[in-house]
């Protein structure tokens, strides 16, 4: 079989990208983003992109680079704070933003990958998010119809992957990556460790290889932390997880 393995991000992206395409990219904030692929996407210089993801990077990091390079026409996201260039582009009409509630966005992507053209959710009923959308009652409650999303190319980041495309994510770096992996016509995965088939336990695989067309071992991960919060060793304060 033709191998799914590529040497790096640029070669993995080659031939898959084009002007006007729709790209999905995994990650929550800067956690679990496909850093190498985003850089290669910027270097590809393809234009007029529609980008789907929870965020669009943050100042100087992640998908921000593609935005700053003037490649993005439209964004579907749930949160775009901490991104001054996007703010400017949005205000002056240079970029269109379609805001999606985070859970609706996640479910729309899952639906797109799972062959579900539309579904109903209570989220957003009675808000501007429902404007222009079909609303409907089930068992006395009102719901909004939302549609599935697919992409020309999906970019995901996993912790470990094998040469068959099987992926395992790590902690909260999983986030949007598993659904996005299912919703791309071509899904490209970058991993921190690329191993041989049989090294990933079959019960622990989060994304089966069928969804991944191309895979490579990423390098030089920055994994920038947006809000470093710590506690001193001698304190019980600043504890968001609470006492238990």
């Amino acid at each position: 079989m033709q191998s799914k393995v590529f040497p790096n991000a640029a070669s993995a992206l080659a031939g898959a990208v084009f002007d006007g395409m729709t790209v999905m990219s995994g990650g929550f904030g800067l956690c679990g983003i496909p850093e190498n692929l985003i850089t290669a996407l910027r270097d590809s210089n393809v234009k007029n992109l529609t980008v789907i993801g929870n965020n669009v990077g943050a100042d100087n990091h992640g998908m921000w680079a593609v935005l700053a390079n003037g490649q993005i026409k439209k964004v579907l996201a749930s949160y775009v704070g901490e991104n001054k260039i996007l703010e400017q582009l949005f205000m002056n009409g240079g970029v269109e933003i379609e805001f999606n509630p985070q859970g609706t966005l996640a479910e729309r992507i899952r639906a797109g990958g799972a062959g579900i053209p539309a579904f109903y959710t209570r989220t957003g009923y009675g808000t501007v998010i429902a404007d222009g959308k079909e609303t409907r009652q089930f068992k006395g409650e009102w719901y909004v119809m939302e549609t599935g999303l697919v992409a020309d190319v999906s970019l995901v980041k996993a912790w470990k992957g094998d040469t068959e495309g099987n992926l395992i994510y790590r902690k909260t770096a999983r986030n949007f990556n598993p659904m996005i992996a299912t919703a791309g016509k071509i899904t490209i995965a970058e991993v921190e460790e690329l191993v041989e088939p049989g090294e990933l336990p079959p019960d622990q695989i989060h994304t089966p290889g069928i969804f991944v067309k191309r895979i490579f071992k990423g390098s030089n991960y920055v994994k920038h932390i947006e809000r470093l919060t710590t506690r001193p060793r001698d304190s019980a304060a600043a504890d968001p997880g609470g006492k238990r």
Partner: protein
Amino acid sequence: MAWTRDEMAARAARELKDGFYVNLGIGIPTLVANMIPEGIKVTLQSENGMLGMGPFPYEGEADSDLINAGKQTITELPQTSYFSSADSFGMIRGGHINLSILGAMQVAENGDLANWMVPGKMIKGMGGAMDLVAGVPRVVVVMDHTEKAGDSKLKHQCSLPLTGKGVVDMVITDLGVFEIDRKGSGVVLIEIASGVTLDEIKAKTEATVNYSKFS
């Protein structure tokens, strides 16, 4: 002498029950995690894909693959599990989280909530707030009673774009605690903050409130 932020969080913590799974918003709601009453076990969900959120890491031990929905570095606990955003919001939308505590710009007497955008200002997005208020069966809002300019945030109707329609069950402000009926039967003042008078609350509240418990 209205309630401080910590006192508001402590009051919100009294809404926790043993065994609850809870999602806490940013700001004052985050403080609730430090005020969980003795003998009560609460599991915190973070909507970016984690159940069983632990405290901030010790200095030097932060893990960039482990953040909460506020993008702060955190830690895991023995009972922690991780899952995708789709599974996380399935959990939220499906009503499996017992309680959501979050901040607000405005709450209306019919339970409407506004906390995500102000027309004319930069829109950052609603994140997971719309899903949380639509999916979690009990929603408690913690907010200042008034704007800085003095306008009541507990209103007849929200003037700002809504996050959710008929979704709030309780509002805890610096002046007191209000129960709201999502079905629209009204707002009831159930508690007055220490050092606050009923007249002060009446003067600072736009919403029609049932004050009968105190008059």
